[in-house]
C-alpha cells in the first residue's frame, strides 16, 4: 500500500512552503492563462513571457491549490525558464508521460506526432530533475489532476505565445 511519504516527498513540501516564481507579469507582453480543477475548485494562473526568439524569458504563477498542484507549478516554473517553446512542450510530454496520462490531446495539440514513438512516449531524452519527486502521485490517482493542472494551463499559454511568435 502506498504511504504518505510516497506522495509528499520532502522536495514537494519544500516547493509548497516556499513556492518559486509566485506573482504576476504585465500583460501584454506576457500571456495570462487560467486553469481550474473542477473537482476541488483549485485555480492556477500562469503568466508566460516569451521573447522574440521563442524562449521563455519569464514565468509567474498565481492562484491557490493543494501541496501537489502548488509544488508541481513551482517546480514547473523553475524548469521551463530559459527553455524554448519546443523544449517546454517536450518537457510537458515527459512530465505527463510520468503521470501516465496518454492524452490524445497532447499528441495533437499544435504538434505533429512525429516526436512520439509507437507507445506515445517522447523520443527525446528529457531530464525531469526535481520533477521526478512527483512520480509517487501516480499511486494516488485522484491526485493526478492536481499534479497536471499547472502543465495543462502552461500548454494553453504556450499555444498562445506560439501564435504570437511563429517560429
Amino acid at each position: 500500500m502506498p504511504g504518505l511519504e510516497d506522495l509528499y516527498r520532502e522536495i514537494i513540501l519544500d516547493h509548497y512552503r516556499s513556492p518559486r516564481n509566485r506573482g504576476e507579469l504585465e500583460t501584454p507582453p506576457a500571456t495570462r492563462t487560467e486553469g481550474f480543477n473542477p473537482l476541488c475548485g483549485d485555480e492556477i494562473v500562469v503568466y508566460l513571457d516569451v521573447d522574440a526568439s521563442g524562449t521563455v524569458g519569464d514565468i509567474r504563477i498565481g492562484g491557490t491549490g493543494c501541496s501537489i498542484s502548488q509544488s508541481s507549478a513551482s517546480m514547473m516554473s523553475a524548469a521551463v525558464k530559459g527553455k524554448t517553446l519546443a523544449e517546454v512542450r517536450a518537457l510537458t510530454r515527459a512530465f505527463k508521460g510520468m503521470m501516465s496520462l496518454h492524452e490524445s490531446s497532447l499528441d495533437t495539440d499544435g504538434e505533429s506526432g512525429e516526436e512520439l514513438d509507437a507507445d506515445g512516449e517522447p523520443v527525446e531524452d528529457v531530464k525531469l530533475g526535481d520533477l521526478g519527486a512527483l512520480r509517487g502521485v501516480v499511486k494516488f490517482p485522484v491526485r493526478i489532476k492536481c499534479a497536471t493542472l499547472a502543465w495543462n494551463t502552461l500548454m494553453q499559454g504556450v499555444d498562445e505565445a506560439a501564435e504570437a511568435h511563429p517560429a
Partner: protein
Amino acid sequence: MSTAEVTRTFDVAKVKADFPLLQRELKGGPIHYLDSAASSQKPQVVIDAMTTYYETINANVHRGVYEIAEAATNALEASRVRVGRFIGAPNPETEVIFSKNATESLNLVARSWGGANLGPGDAVLLTQLEHHANIVPWFQLQAEKGFEIRWIPLTADAQLDLTDIDRLLDGVKLLALTAMSNVTGTLTPVRELTEKAHAAGALVCLDACQYVPHLATDVVSLGVDFAAFSGHKMLGPTGIGVLWGREALLDAMPTFLGGGGMILNVTLDGFTPAAPPAKFEAGTPPVAEIIGLHAAVDYLDALGMDAVREHEVTITAYALRTLTERFGEALTIHGPAEPAARGGVLSLAMEGIHPHDLAQVLDEHAVCVRPGHHCAKPLMKVLGVGATARASFYVYNDTDDVDALADALGEAADFFSF
C-alpha cells in the same frame, strides 16, 4: 465519553451493526465514514428489500395484469404513500413524484412550473447557501426567459441575513431555498420565510435534500409549495429522488419529460397528459430503488426522526467541543457555532493545510471526509475559501468516529507543520 452517554434514544452500536459496509476493515482498522452529506450508507434491510424484489416480483409496473406485475405495481404505490406520509404530504397518492434524485426534482420545478410562470419582469429569489442543483436550473431557465435572479446574503456565521428580506421579496414569484446547507450545516428559517414569501405573493420551493434525512419533516407545517430530496442521502439507494408538490400546482403545471407512462392518450395529432403523479413520471421507473426507499423510510421511522435529530445534535456538539478544545484557532469550522442551529455537517479549514492534503492524510486513517467545493461554489466564494474538508454525521456515527477524526487531524497538523 462512552456511546451510551451520548445517545439517550437509540443504541448507535446496534444501528452501526445494521450496515454491512461499516463492518469492513480499512487500513487495518474500522472504517470511519464521515461523508453522509454526500451519500449515506445502506442498512441490510434496504439491500434485502431490493434483492427480494428482484428475486420474487420483478416485472414492469402499471401495465401488466399478471400476478407479479400487479405485486410490483402495488409495491411501488405503497412506497409512494409511505414516503408521502413520512413528510406529511396531505395527498401522497397524487403529490409524491418519483424522480432520479433531488437534482432532477428541482429541474422539474424549474422547467415545468418556471417555464410556464416566469418571464421578463419576474424575479426568483435564491440564497447564497444553495447547492448547484438549486442554482444552475434557474440560470438555464433565465437564459431563455429573461427573469431576474436575486440572492439572500449571509451573516458572518453563514446564516441567512434577513435584514433586507422585504425588499428582496418585492416582485418575486418564487423563493427557492435549501432547508439545510450541505457545506455549513446551516438550518434556514423555512417557516418564517415561507410566510413572508406567501405574503409577498411568491411560491416556495424547498431543497430538502439535507433536511428530510435528518429532521422530522412536515411539508404542511413548513408551509412550502414544493420539496425536493434524494433517496441516497437517507439510507436509501441511489437513482431515486422525490418531488413533493401541492396538488393544485401539479395539476396546472405542464408536463416535463415525455414518453410512456405520462399520457392519458396519444393520437396521430398529439397527446393528452395523465394526471399527477404519472404526468411527471415518463418511462419505466426505478422500481427496485423505490422499494428500497420504502425500507429506508421504515428504518428511519423505527429509529424515530426526533431521536435521529437528537443524536445528530449530540454528536455535533461533541465534535465541535472536541475539535475546538484540541485545535483552537488553528482549525476553522464554518457555519453556526450553536449545534441546535445546524445539522451534523462540519466544513473544516486547518491553518496551512489545503483540504485536499487534509483529506489525504485522513484517508490513511480510514477517516472518510470530502475535500472540495461541495457543489456550492458561490457559497465558497462568500466564505472566502476555494475548498473545505467536510465531515458529516448520521445515525451510525459515534464518538469513536469523532475521536478518530480528531486524531487524524492531529497527525495531519504534525505532518504538515511548517
